């Protein structure tokens, strides 16, 4: 047993401990904090699995923004803790535990018995990388080989926005999402919100740019930009835009829209829907990614802000 294995076992043990704590602790707020710590450590597991792209995504979206979302909800729902204590009976819990454990056991056995050598598409990805001019294999899969999934998933994000907005009351429709954040304009949060975003925006764009050849991409960069935007909103420096705004709507569909347009271009003038002509593959993919970066950042930010609550005037 070498030192790496010891480290991996320790990491897995801590992650599992946090998972158990997240499920078992009575207080919801503590469970949320436990889950955020869990998410960050899972990102480390992804690094150990040599999947740095996923590690970045997991840390940024799964642990980071997801954590903010859950924390915000936990804070707003803290008063209901006392009201909803009718838990299921012991028998129910016991049978749920036994059944969940058996499913986990079946999964564990299946994972351990997966065939050796494992099937893989990695050589195929390498062999076809030349068609896009990019060397990050994950970006190639996301943007070229499985472009349809990525485009549909952008539509999923848009539908999540429509779903969240549809929860507004009729009076607040068209207004600004979320509560208005008030903070001391000379306070430390406002200071941070003035200092950090310029650097954060550079980092976000860098992650997108480097995503062509190294780990990174539109998702990860978009998450960084979204967090910068949220920071500025929380510091009260800017307000969330009213959902009626045409510009906002345009930005929200820019990513999937451009993706779709390029895809249709391929259908009409190229070899197939979502096929990129080899000469222009890299610039086309990069411009789609730039549009997606904007869309993702805005979408993530708005998903965190929630449904429209205030009319646009105030």
């Amino acid at each position, binding site marked *: 047993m070498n030192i790496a294995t010891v480290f991996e076992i320790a990491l897995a043990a801590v992650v599992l401990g946090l998972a158990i704590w997240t499920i078992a602790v009575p207080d919801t707020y503590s469970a949320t904090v436990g889950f955020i710590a869990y998410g960050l450590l899972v990102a480390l597991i992804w690094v150990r699995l040599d999947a740095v792209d996923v590690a970045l995504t997991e840390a940024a979206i799964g642990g980071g923004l997801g954590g903010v979302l859950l924390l915000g909800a936990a804070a707003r729902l803290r008063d209901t803790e006392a009201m909803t204590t009718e838990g299921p009976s012991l028998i129910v819990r016991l049978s749920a535990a036994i059944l969940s454990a058996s*499913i986990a056991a079946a999964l564990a056995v299946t994972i351990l018995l997966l065939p050796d050598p494992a099937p893989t598409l990695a050589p195929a990805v390498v062999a076809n990388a030349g068609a896009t001019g990019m060397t990050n294999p994950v970006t190639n899969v996301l943007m*070229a080989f499985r472009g349809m999934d990525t485009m549909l998933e952008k539509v999923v994000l848009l539908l999540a926005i429509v779903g969240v907005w549809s*929860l507004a009351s009729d009076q607040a429709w068209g207004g600004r999402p979320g509560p208005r954040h008030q903070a001391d304009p000379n306070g430390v949060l406002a200071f941070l919100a003035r200092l950090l975003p310029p650097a954060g925006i550079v980092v976000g764009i860098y992650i997108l740019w480097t995503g062509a050849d190294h780990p990174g991409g539109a998702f990860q960069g978009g998450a960084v930009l979204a967090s910068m935007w949220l920071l500025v909103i929380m510091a009260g420096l800017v307000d969330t835009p009213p959902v009626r705004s045409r510009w906002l709507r345009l930005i929200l569909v820019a990513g999937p829209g451009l993706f779709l347009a390029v895809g249709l271009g391929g259908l009409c003038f190229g070899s197939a829907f979502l096929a990129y002509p080899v000469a222009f593959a890299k610039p086309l993919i990069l411009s789609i990614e730039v549009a997606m970066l904007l869309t993702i950042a805005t979408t993530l930010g708005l998903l965190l802000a929630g449904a429209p609550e205030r009319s646009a005037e105030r």
Partner: protein
Amino acid sequence: MLPPAPALVTTAGGFLLVLSIVVPVAGVLLAFVLGERYVRQVASTVVPVGLAIAFAVLVLLPRSDGHLVYLLGAWPPPLGVALRADGLSAVMLATTAVVICAVAIFAATDFRPQSVEARAPFAFWILLLAIWGALNTIFIAGDLFTLYVALELLTFAAVPLVSLDGRAETLRAALRYLLFALLGSVLYLMGTALLYGLYGTLDIALLSHRVNADSGVLIAAALMTTGLLAKTALFPLHLWLPPAHAGAPAAASAILSALVVKGSFFILVRLWFDVMPGLPGLAAAQLLAALGAGAILFGSVVALRQERLKLLIAYSTLAQIGYLFLMFPLAFGASGKLESDQALAGGLLQAVSHATAKAAMFMAVGSIYAGLGHDRITGLCGVARALPLSVLAFAIGGIALMGVQPSGASFAKELLLQETARTGQWWWAIVLQAGGMFTTAYVVLVLSHALAPSDQPIVLVGPAPLSRDLAALVLALCSLFLGLLPWDSYLPAPSDAASKLFGIDALSKLLLPVLGGAALAILLSPWPHPLGSSAAWKALMRVVGPLRRGCLRFGSLIERGDEVLRQWSAAGISLLLVSLLLAASMLAAN
């Protein structure tokens, strides 16, 4: 179904498949940008185009050997994603297009964007187009992960429809629906991960050539099947369906009930018949059909006890979903191998009939609700005179659904009954007949209230636009005449079966369910009938009184059981149990 060798080239006309996804998706994007004022115009432009595409696929398919293939980005699987259409896909594409079209006409007056209340129309039209795009993707995607994304797209479009009116009950229903559907999709995703680990591809055609009865495959199949069952709301995983379908606005209910549950059902059919043809085995298929039988019993009995018409229809959807699952064991031969495609044809045809008829019925009920201001069954007297077209649409939809010739349901039932005789599984023939009787029971129940004369004239509280009733009526008539269509070019159904639909024995086949259904309606419905004071009714009650009391007690027992099963934790435990039972029966069979 899928070609014997994986087709790795785009066929002529394959671009239609791309368009059938791209057009609704482009509609979603465009409607979102143009905003509240133009959202309905965008939808009314997209709907005819989509309808034309669906019918173009229908026309083109027989000419291109029954298959259309399109390689997205010209990347062949396993690296790329292929779109494939076969007869099943074409039929479902066309059904979806027709139902969406009718619902769009129905909703045009409901969801008219006004300056004050723009929220609901904005969300409704976008979500309608999104559901369409998601369903089309489900019907033609050739890759299990693309199917997952499409499934999530469908859920994300369906959930906000449930809570469109913003009342607390509907929000609660939407949240339950969302959480349970997410649980289902995670189970599906688990199976996908295992399949990729086993075979290094998620392409359906490639997988169908690589799978063998490995324990890992069977566990993946059990997990995916359970996840899809949760999304289809097969008993006992139906906790979310009744409140969600009954609480949504009528147009949304029609879509949810007619189409959305069919999406996950279709993936299940793909999984069992295409990805791993027959691999799950007869035992697991019997389990699915047994759950279907449970759904028929619980759904129908509880439906007959509902006071509100929308809840009645929602519970009847539950029963009809169960009916769809009866085809699984019938497709297996005595040797335990997948033999017959005729059962598959019957099941799919049933799904199509249910989609059209149930959408029509929900729309008719929506009109009645809008007209009367309520939908209590006991308050329906005289409504046939006040809203004749709505009641007519409901009646025709109901008649089509209960299997009167030449409806699609009767054709489907005929196909399935032949299969029960062929495979010697007589017990499913009983369930099939019982299902038909129960369907008749609640149609008869509602019609007997609606057709009863009223002592005081009905006051209509809302407008009853003609276009709404006509949309429902046309859809109901579609369902009624489905049996006459030339199915044999799309589904593996014998072409002469339709001709057997008429004749003397057809009449006798009709009489049995009608009489049985009427009896069930009298015995199981607790509501006082408007004719309850007539002498004939009293004489009847004297004869069947004790029996009826017993049946009512049985009914209330079933209702209480349903309430227990719809508790969150009970449903969750059922979910895990079903997945373990499926896995065990699959492992035992191989």
